[in-house]
């Protein structure tokens, strides 16, 4: 019993995370993503969350178990001996973990920090098997690794970060947007 692939894509089919636990060539991977999107996006919102897999991922023997959250589809492609209800629970754990670690995760987070999402996923699933299901355990491990990275960066990158931050502030626009307080009317003085 194993998970064959974990895919996250948005409502237009753009992939936001793709992890394959079985080896496929790259163009085949893209085909799988497209086909999965086609299968999943056709589904109504009030039908059950299980589908037979498409023709590329082995047809009958594989199942797609998915959840749709706002603009994102989370799809786990599993073989027939995995428990469907259990995988649904697992998706829930994954999403909640992302939510806690990114503070109300949204699609932008996935776009700009795809490496972090991978790191979190690697604490949850390894080699297609479930590694850990306790959310606080996953989070604490992830945060410790973040700390380790930050401590390695040290002081040397601080100036570079500061410069980037200032450049991004877009001062001219901020000046335009600044709201000036109302000035008192002088006309009252000339009564």
């Amino acid at each position: 019993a194993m998970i064959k692939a974990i895919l996250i894509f948005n409502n237009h089919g753009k992939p936001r995370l793709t992890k394959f636990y079985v080896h496929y060539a790259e163009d085949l991977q893209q085909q799988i993503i497209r086909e999965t999107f086609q299968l999943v996006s056709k589904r109504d919102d009030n039908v059950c969350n299980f589908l037979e897999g498409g023709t590329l991922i082995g047809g009958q023997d594989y199942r797609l178990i998915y959840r749709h959250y706002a603009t994102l589809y989370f799809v786990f492609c599993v073989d027939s001996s995995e428990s469907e209800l259990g995988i649904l629970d697992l998706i829930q754990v994954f999403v909640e973990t992302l939510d806690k670690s990114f503070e109300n995760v949204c699609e932008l987070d996935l776009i700009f920090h795809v490496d972090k999402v991978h790191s979190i996923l690697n604490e949850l699933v390894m080699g297609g098997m479930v590694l850990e299901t306790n959310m606080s355990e996953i989070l604490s491990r992830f945060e410790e690794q973040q700390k380790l990275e930050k401590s390695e960066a040290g002081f040397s990158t601080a100036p570079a970060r500061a410069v980037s931050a200032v450049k991004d502030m877009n001062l001219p626009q901020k000046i335009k947007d600044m709201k000036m307080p109302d000035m008192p009317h002088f006309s009252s003085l000339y009564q």
Partner: protein
Amino acid sequence: KGIIANTPKRLRDLIREIRAAKTAAEERAVHHLNSNHTKKRHHPPSRCRNVAKLLLYIHMLGYPAHFGQMECLKLVASPKFSDKRIGYLGAMLLLDERAEVHLLVTNSVKNDMNHSTQYIVSLALSTLGSICSPEMSRDLAGEVQALIKSNNAYLRKKAALCALRIIQKIPDIMEMYIPCARSLLNEKNHGVLLTAVCLISQMCQLSPETLNHFRRLVPNLVRILKNLIMSGFSQDHDVNGVSDPFLQVKILQLLRILGHQDSAASEQMNDILAQVATNTETSKNVGHSILYEIVLTIMGIESESGLRVLAVNILGRFLLNTDKNIRYVALSTLQRVVQADYNAVQRHRTTIVDCLRDTDASIKRRAMELCFSLINGQNIRGMAKEMLSFLADCGSEFKADCCSNLAIAAERYAPNKRWHVDTLLKLLAAAGNHARDDVVVAAVQLISEQSAYQAYAVHQLFYYASQDFSQQPMVLLACWCIGEYGGGLFSDCCADGLETYSAKSPEEVLGLLEQALLSSQSRQSTKHVAVTAVMKLSTRLPHQEQQLLDSIRHLAAYHCTSSQLELQQRSVEFSAIFRHHENIRAALLEPMPVMEGRAESGRDLPAGSGAAAVASGDSAEVGDEVAAAAAAAAVAATFESLINFDDSSTGGVPNATIGLPNAATNSSSMLATNNSNSVAGPLIDVFGDLGVSEPAPVSEASALPALPPIASAGIAGLQLSLAGSRQQSNNVDLIIRAVNLGDTNMTNFLLQAAVPKSLQLSMMPASGDCLPPAGGSVTQKAVVTNPNGVSALCGLKAWSGLKGLG
């Protein structure tokens, strides 16, 4: 939130550019520029990471990123955790375990597995778990084993899963992991326990000896499970009030593997299974996943019947749940167990039938399949009613299957024939154009057998067909039946003393058939049947009024110029019957006998009756016909399939009826072998003077008695004669001579012969294919071998005037 500020600039800009690209072409251009840029520059270490992250993003969107593999390897070799992290991530995604380059990372992984920082070790383990090739696995198996025994729980957990991947790749080194796997079961840490159970499950699935070895651990597993459910509130792993549901599920899966087909082990599990089943809180989804796993385990091991009933009842409760996912898994599990636990599942039949009305298509489909498994002699009436109303409302993707399955069920369990006929008709009406041909065939079969209900059936069919002409299977059936049994339409019909159907006038009936012939809604097969039906009706009319006959002639000839070959041919042939063969029209179109049972899933419909001439009823698909040997008309026949031998002793035109071919096999269907010496009719027993079972010792060729010539029934003026000489005891040489005594020239003459399967026949080339009038002849030699010494028959068929048809 500062998402943007925390992302290094280069990556950020690239992502922005990509997202800003309005078309795919622009996007590709951006990628192209960037990958060129990335390839060319030699990056200082601090930028390496950003490059790698960039590569990941590109790769995910589907652009080739192979050039980044070396970057990743450089990063992995760096001493810093941050570099290694990205490097290993890139390696996992970009490196292909089938390419050579992945081996380059082996050394780094090996070193990192012995690193002092636990997170670096864990990165190495994760990578090995992902891109684990057989070579790498062999190299690193020892390191992994050492890590399973590490005193760091986090690493133990990852090492266990790593080991699992390794033994998937190289099953023979499984042995080295058995002792440490076993000791992992004594863990308190849930994460480690989870991975340990996974590892043991995989081992048991790979090797039966290991399975036996681990069976001894069933009591330990039972104890762990018990602790889980009894230990009250373990906050860490609690999910909505259930203690670590994932671990419970995995343990239950392992128990299933261990208890499968082993009653001793299964017995040790009975108690705990019942206990978990009754104690599990089901108000949230997590409880359901555990219960579902329990059901699967109970069904997968040698459990006592009480437990199995409990399992089925759990599934029954699932069916009432509002969550569609739960209903879905319940239905698919019930389908798997319905054969084994038939009675238990029957008790939930009403709920299952209710699921037919669900809005979700996958639930409807499973409910439908399950319903068909549950139909039996007692509930057939009620169930048929339910299925018919389902059929009327369901989507088109279900109709064909539902229709066919219901037809089968009706045939198997019909309480009486009237009900059966009714149900089949209603079935066809509800399924409309989705009904498959086998259902139509079954209906024909049934009606032909039930002579008591033929009139009733025809009236019903007439009614249905007039109501809704668009349902072609129904209309086809109606046309065929009207043709064959149309006589019943012209008088009142009172079926079983219930309703009375009033008589229809011939004009009405012909009107319906006319509609069938002319309407654009009619399929080709419908038109074929309609033409034949019109012809047959000419003999079934209550009064042979000239006006009606004229209409029939007109209808029959309507398609004489059709561009569809089959239709044109029929039209022409039938018109020819009116023109030239009025005297035998009645005989040609006599009613058919009851059809014999179909061989398999009989796709055929019977050929019509007639002497050597044939009328034809068709199947929608394969039209096997025997040729009409009308004078100048061409003949098309599949020779092998329909030769009938009837031991009628009248000469001239035998009233031979042609039986059903075995459509499944393309064999010539032969009836009885005829031991008599009679040479009347078209039958010749060429081995007649031998007697049945004695292989007469014959050493020299001897001539057979000369056989009297036979007049061909169909082709006027043609005379066939056979002369034979026996070569050896089992071989006969036949000389067949065809003489044209008539006064028309016969061209394209072709002779064919057929023998029963127990004989072998080979034909030599004929002397010619043209028979001039008044005495022209053609001879042809044939060799018949009779290895079994049975008395045998030989049939002959002659064609003339073939217009290039087979």
